[in-house]
């Protein structure tokens, strides 16, 4: 028997599952071969705790056949996006635990996923919107928009008051000092008015007012006596009574009509007709 024959049956020999005749042949060889004896001892060793469980197997596989760097790299984006199935996720995670390069790449990808969306919004300068509107709005709207935006800013400037005063003076000077202007002699007239005696201008109106006051006083003196005032009062009272009587008659007539209508409606509804209220009587009596 050669060592190679024993190696072929080493697993069964270690598991002690060989038939007695065959095992006897191998034991004869083992007694003479120290190398094969050592090999059989190693084959019969128990694995330490933790070796052989799922994580251990995944770890070995991740570093060997199923998820090398290329495979992990292909799955990294889906891993970062959370789209990787659980089984593959475990394999890739196992690979990352043992591969520094792929782990660093995964960190960069995760940081990019957070950072890139912030580049979506870049601020153009402040005049950008105005420039676009200038190319799209009609002329009237553009002018209106300009005034709506520019006027308040212009007015709020500290120099606005002095600028308005300056422009006002310029306008007055141009209007008044231009030869042939209808207002050319306005300053002279204004100066003459200022220099004139104000009382001279008031004499005529004051005299007119005095005349009117005197006329009124004369009419009062030659006016009605007390008897005249009494006659006037009686006439006014008689007129008022006549008017009030006519109004009372109209109210009484309307009330009678209304009461008739109410009585008719109540009769149709089978309800008793109430006696006239005192206020109604008083109205009739008053009429």
């Amino acid at each position, binding site marked *: 028997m050669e060592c190679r024959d024993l190696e072929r049956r080493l697993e069964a020999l270690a598991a002690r599952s060989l038939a007695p005749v065959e095992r006897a042949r191998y034991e004869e060889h083992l007694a003479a071969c120290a190398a094969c004896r050592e090999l059989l001892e190693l084959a019969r060793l128990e694995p330490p705790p933790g070796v052989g469980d799922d994580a251990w197997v995944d770890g070995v596989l991740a570093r060997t056949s199923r998820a090398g760097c290329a495979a992990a790299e292909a799955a990294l984006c889906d891993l970062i996006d959370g789209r990787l199935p659980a089984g593959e996720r475990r394999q890739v995670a196992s690979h990352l635990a043992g591969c520094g390069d792929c782990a*660093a790449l995964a960190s960069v990808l995760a*940081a990019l996923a957070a950072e890139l969306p912030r*580049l*979506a919004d*870049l*601020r*153009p300068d402040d005049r*950008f919107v105005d*420039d676009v509107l200038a190319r799209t709005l009609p002329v009237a709207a553009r002018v209106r928009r300009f005034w709506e935006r520019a006027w308040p800013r212009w007015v709020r400037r500290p120099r606005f008051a002095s600028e308005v005063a300056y422009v006002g003076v310029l306008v007055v000077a141009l209007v008044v000092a231009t030869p042939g202007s209808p207002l050319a002699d306005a300053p002279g007239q204004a100066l003459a008015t200022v220099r004139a005696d104000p009382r001279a201008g008031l004499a005529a109106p004051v005299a007119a007012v005095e005349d009117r006051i005197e006329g009124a006083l004369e009419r009062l003196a030659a006016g009605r006596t007390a008897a005249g005032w009494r006659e006037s009062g009686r006439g006014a009272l008689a007129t008022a009574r006549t008017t009030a009587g006519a109004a009372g008659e109209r109210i009484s007539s309307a009330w009678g009509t209304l009461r008739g209508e109410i009585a008719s409606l109540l009769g149709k509804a089978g309800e008793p007709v109430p006696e006239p209220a005192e206020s109604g009587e008083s109205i009739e009596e008053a009429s």
Partner: protein
Amino acid sequence: MRRYQGRVFAVAFHYLRDREEARDAAQDIFVKVYEQLGSLRAGDAFLPWLLRLARNCCIDRLRRLKVRTPARAVAVDEVPEIPAREPSPEEASLLGARHGLLYRALARLSSKNREMILLKDIQELKLEEISQLLALPLGTVKSRSNRARIELAKAVRSLDASFGA
């Protein structure tokens, strides 16, 4: 317009790689949006429609200019201003450097991969929308997107080994 101007400007900048060109292109895009808004059918999502229009407009502009996107690195000070979400100047400074790094890494990618990153990872379009936009099969879009991301991640690592650590 105020809502989408940042996105449109970002898309234009990614295609044209030049701030002024991107600004002019973004203006053209909004003018076209104004002119072609009627072609948007009821029920269509606005953002993919807008990005499709922006992409076509940028490609037209590139053809008109007869230039290719330069493969040079983009300096940090060339990067347009990022909208103010940064709470402190220190963080803003850090983000500016990080985004500059990203632009430099993006500049190293092929134009196809850069476009894929722009649409999928920056503008966050769905794979189906990108497939429609680029007239590519869904599987091709998915595999090209994954390749582009890996390529970008490697480019970023080569520029800064501590990125993401």
